[in-house]
């Protein structure tokens, strides 16, 4: 038990150390910006993975929660001159309320209802961002969102913002690792594996599903606030249906029910479009293909699936080796 706890803190600690050392080597602003985006995406994907990978429920509208965080922070600070940190808290509260409104009816039923309800929800929220021009600035966006600051220090350099984003993301990773390795985490996985058995074991599945839905929405909201204060300009197109699908793809690539996989998935699908030109023209075709191929052949996700294949290959090789030496 304590050994396992130690193992977890060693993982988080060494990853944190690695992250802290990166800016020593990487000083180029563009690279730092990409790393900040990876951090924000990781925060989103870790939250979504709690819902999808662990509890087996899906959100096809997670961009909406990301957008709610970004727009609430943006509007409160740019239009109403509220200071960013309280704005971020208000954004979280608002997101929780909205997540309950959508999640409570949809989660009573099978996963298909949640998937479709969140799909619709994502599109509707996008429409609101576009149509409520007086509030959101409409399709042309919202400008003048201030940079974040801690005390008197304004985090206007990529390097400082990098530290802030990754400190929060690393914290979220640590919390998530604790959650999945606990009574609650086991209950979430139990829901995914067999809901009847989970209920018979005394798990209030309906409430737990709502909880995890809300938690993942909160992660998304915080990520949205961080995003808004980073680029200081937001427009509806950053929160459209395709972004929700990209997040799902990141979970699928990273692997279901794997927190570290989520980091990998977020990093891969943030970097690849930057380097590979094919992504620009055909991104939806490629994302579609990834989703189909991975889920058909490796329903546990790409990293898990690849590991399983490797394991199988090694076993076969060992068995073959033994039978050779035996004969």
């Amino acid at each position, binding site marked *: 038990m304590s050994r396992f706890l130690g193992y977890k803190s060693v993982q988080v600690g060494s990853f944190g150390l690695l992250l802290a050392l990166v800016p020593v080597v990487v000083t180029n602003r563009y690279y730092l910006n990409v790393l900040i985006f990876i951090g924000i995406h990781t925060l989103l994907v870790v939250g979504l993975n709690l819902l999808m990978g662990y509890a087996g429920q899906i959100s096809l509208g997670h961009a909406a929660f990301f957008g709610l965080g970004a727009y609430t922070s943006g509007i409160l600070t740019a239009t109403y001159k509220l200071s960013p940190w309280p704005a971020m808290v208000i954004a979280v509260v608002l997101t929780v309320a909205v997540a309950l409104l959508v999640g409570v009816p949809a989660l009573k039923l099978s996963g298909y209802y949640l998937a479709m309800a969140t799909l619709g929800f994502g599109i509707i929220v996008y429409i609101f961002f576009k149509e409520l021009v007086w509030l959101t600035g409409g399709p042309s966006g919202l400008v003048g969102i201030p940079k974040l600051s801690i005390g008197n220090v304004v985090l206007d350099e990529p390097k400082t913002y990098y530290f802030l984003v990754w400190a929060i993301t690393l914290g979220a990773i640590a919390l998530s690792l604790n959650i999945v390795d606990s*009574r609650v985490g086991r209950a979430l996985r139990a829901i995914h594996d067999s809901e009847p058995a989970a209920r018979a074991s005394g798990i209030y599945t309906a409430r737990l599903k709502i909880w995890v839905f809300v938690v993942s929405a909160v992660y998304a909201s915080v990520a949205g606030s961080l995003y808004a204060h980073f680029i200081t300009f937001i427009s509806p197109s950053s929160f459209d249906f395709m972004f929700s699908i990209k997040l799902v793809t990141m979970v699928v690539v990273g692997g279901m029910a794997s927190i570290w996989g989520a980091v990998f998935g977020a990093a891969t699908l943030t970097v690849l479009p930057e380097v590979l030109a094919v992504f620009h023209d055909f991104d939806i075709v490629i994302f579609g293909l990834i989703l189909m191929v991975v889920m058909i052949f490796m329903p546990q996700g790409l990293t898990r699936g690849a590991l399983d294949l490797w394991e199988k290959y090694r076993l076969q090789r060992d068995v073959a080796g033994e039978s050779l030496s035996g004969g």
Partner: protein
Amino acid sequence: MIELSRQPLLKAENLSKSFGGIHAVREVSFAVARGQIKGIIGPNGAGKTTLFNLITGFYAADAGAIYFNGRSLNNLVPHQVAERGVARTFQNVELFDRMTVLENVMVGRHPKTRAGFISAAFSLSKARKEESGIRDKAMEILNFIGLSERAADPSTSLPFGFQRVLEIGRALATDPLLLLLDEPASGLNAGETRELGRLIGRIRDKGITVVLVEHDMSLTMEVCDEILVMDYGRTLAEGSPREIQQDPEVIAAYLGEEPFA
């Protein structure tokens, strides 16, 4: 208090449930005394599993009442029934396939523990203490059912017979007063069935009341104190194994099936 212990642990009164015009359970009444092993038998489709689903809150009864430990179970949903002290297994073995043997049993401790999202996320000391308690208790149960050596294996790696036993272990982890076993012997060979019979006896010796639904009768006749026979959703007979074996109605219903072979 004396009154309470004389009362039956479980009492069903005129339970009925139908699905689209088909009466799965029709005005069934029975009682289970504390410390008893009670068998419910009957041919396929007699309504045995439906009865379990009514007791455990998976179905709501159309009519009738269920009392457990002196309190009504009507209108409760499954997790509430589990919290009251009723545990169950499933006919088709419902394990958590992506968990280890130990974790499966640990899930069973859910109704007896409290840690929520917040205390788990921040790994508060009370959550950590509780977690190690869960682990100890689960190991204790694995010892009891004889699976402690397989604790770290994936549950799917167990042979089928052990999977059934593991499911019973998970149910025991909820500290039940009443354990409902849905066809625990189906799919088991004769040796495994005997082993299961001994396990059920040991469970009763711990003070847990057991109700088991069975399609075939060898196990039931051997371990049960009392048997309820169902046919077409109705109660056909109730009594000790000996009485049941001699009941003309039961023999008639089973005619040609050689139930006591």
